[in-house]
């Protein structure tokens, strides 16, 4: 149990870090679903869970972008929170991550992207107050304090994303204790749902790529992958 709480805290710390990186500092894409989810999975000892959820969520959110003042869904929270919950759940079952668990988490935590956007919107209000205060300070000649207001915009993000990821991991821990009550037939259905959702995510990604003749390029990619798989199978035989 002690380990579980350490994992919950780690989930919060990683979630806060990538949440900050997405919004306030660097933007070197540690916050992208593929990296954020893989990192979360690695930290919580469920790498495969992180990888597969990261892969699907990366495709799902591939075409979204923060253009101008528009706020897209928060893909980082969606990835870190969903993976934290799935990893904790997988940990509880003792059998590691399965497509059924991944599906269940994708369904249960589907609203995280929207929640993240709402949170971002609220935090912008705080940053606007900092900007006004900065202007007042500059007016009074307190320039260093005015300039430092910029850094004060960071901490609320860290705190909020830490709490949200801790909540997701905690929920995963809780749900994980009940997972063995789920009938086998439902788990089989959930296992089938995962590649189906992944296929939809890939279609959304191809569409979201904004490429001219995206369908043709998508087909070409599919054909190349099929050829590579056939060659690999032939070589292995």
């Amino acid at each position, binding site marked *: 149990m002690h380990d579980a709480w350490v994992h919950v805290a780690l989930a919060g710390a990683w979630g806060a870090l990538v949440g900050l990186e997405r919004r306030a500092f660097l933007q070197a894409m540690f916050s992208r679903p*593929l990296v954020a989810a893989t990192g979360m999975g690695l930290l919580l000892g469920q790498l495969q869970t992180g990888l597969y959820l990261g892969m699907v969520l*990366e495709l799902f959110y591939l075409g979204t972008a923060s253009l101008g003042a528009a706020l897209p869904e928060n893909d980082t929270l969606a990835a870190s929170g969903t993976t934290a919950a799935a990893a904790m759940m997988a940990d509880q079952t003792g059998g590691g991550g399965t497509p059924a668990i991944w599906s269940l988490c994708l369904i249960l935590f589907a609203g995280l992207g929207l929640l993240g956007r709402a949170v971002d919107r609220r935090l912008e209000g705080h940053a606007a107050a900092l900007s006004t205060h900065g202007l007042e300070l500059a007016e009074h000649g307190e320039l260093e304090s005015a300039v430092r207001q910029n850094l004060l915009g*960071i901490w609320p993000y860290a705190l909020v994303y830490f709490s949200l990821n801790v909540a997701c991991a905690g929920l995963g821990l809780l749900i994980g204790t009940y997972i063995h009550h789920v009938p086998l037939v439902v788990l089989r259905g959930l296992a*089938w749902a995962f*590649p189906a959702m992944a296929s939809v995510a890939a279609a959304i990604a191809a569409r979201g790529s*904004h490429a001219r003749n995206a369908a043709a*390029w998508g087909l070409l990619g599919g054909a190349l992958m099929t050829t590579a798989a056939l060659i690999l199978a032939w070589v292995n035989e």
Partner: protein
Amino acid sequence: MIGPGTHLPTSVKLRVFLRSLLLQASWNPKGMQNLGLVYALYPALEVLYPDPEKRREAVQRHLTFFNTHPYVAAAIVGGVLYHEERIAAGEEDPRRVTEFKGALMGPLAALGDGFFWLSLRPAVGALCAALVPWLGAWAAVLFLVLYNVVHFTLRARLFRMGLQLGDRLVEAVARARLPSRGARLRAVAAASAGAAATYLAFAFGAQQGGVGGWLLAGGCLALGALSYLLVARRVPTAVLTAMAALLAGCLGAWL
């Protein structure tokens, strides 16, 4: 990295560049990146304006509305230093730097959004997602390396261009032909998405095995193709995903 063309010490220019990585720290709907810009410029303004009153004026000049793409902003930050040096030396009117920012932030934002957000990121993201089956966790590392080699190289080059060229940086940026490179990257993104979909369908089909496995693989590919058409008709993605999960879930449970 940060070369000649200005009289500011290199350490100051480096500090400005590093602080520009925090440009979005207090992004807000009112002034947008105004606080971030002043935070980045402040070490240079301290050197250029020893007189507190002049420094206050300079800070206030940059606390007005400012918004552009966070990476391409490096060019404007460099260009602002170029102009501020001349303003501090009495060679230019302070209005020049405000006009410079006003004229460039919109076009550079469009350029940055088009290249980084809508081309490079989707291309590298989809490519590395498609490579997950072969590379495992290294796919995430490869994503960071590929993306950031381009990101940081361009960011540093743009800052240097701004510092050295001032207003003439527009011609230099145009020569980089980012829009045409972006179009090629978008094709990579679409192809990689197709490859990832195919892999997932076959991998999970093989895991299932038997007739059910073929049904799962074929069904997933058909679902992908159908989803592509429905997304084009603006069917909400959440609805599509939920329907796909429900359909596959029922089939999986029934079989």
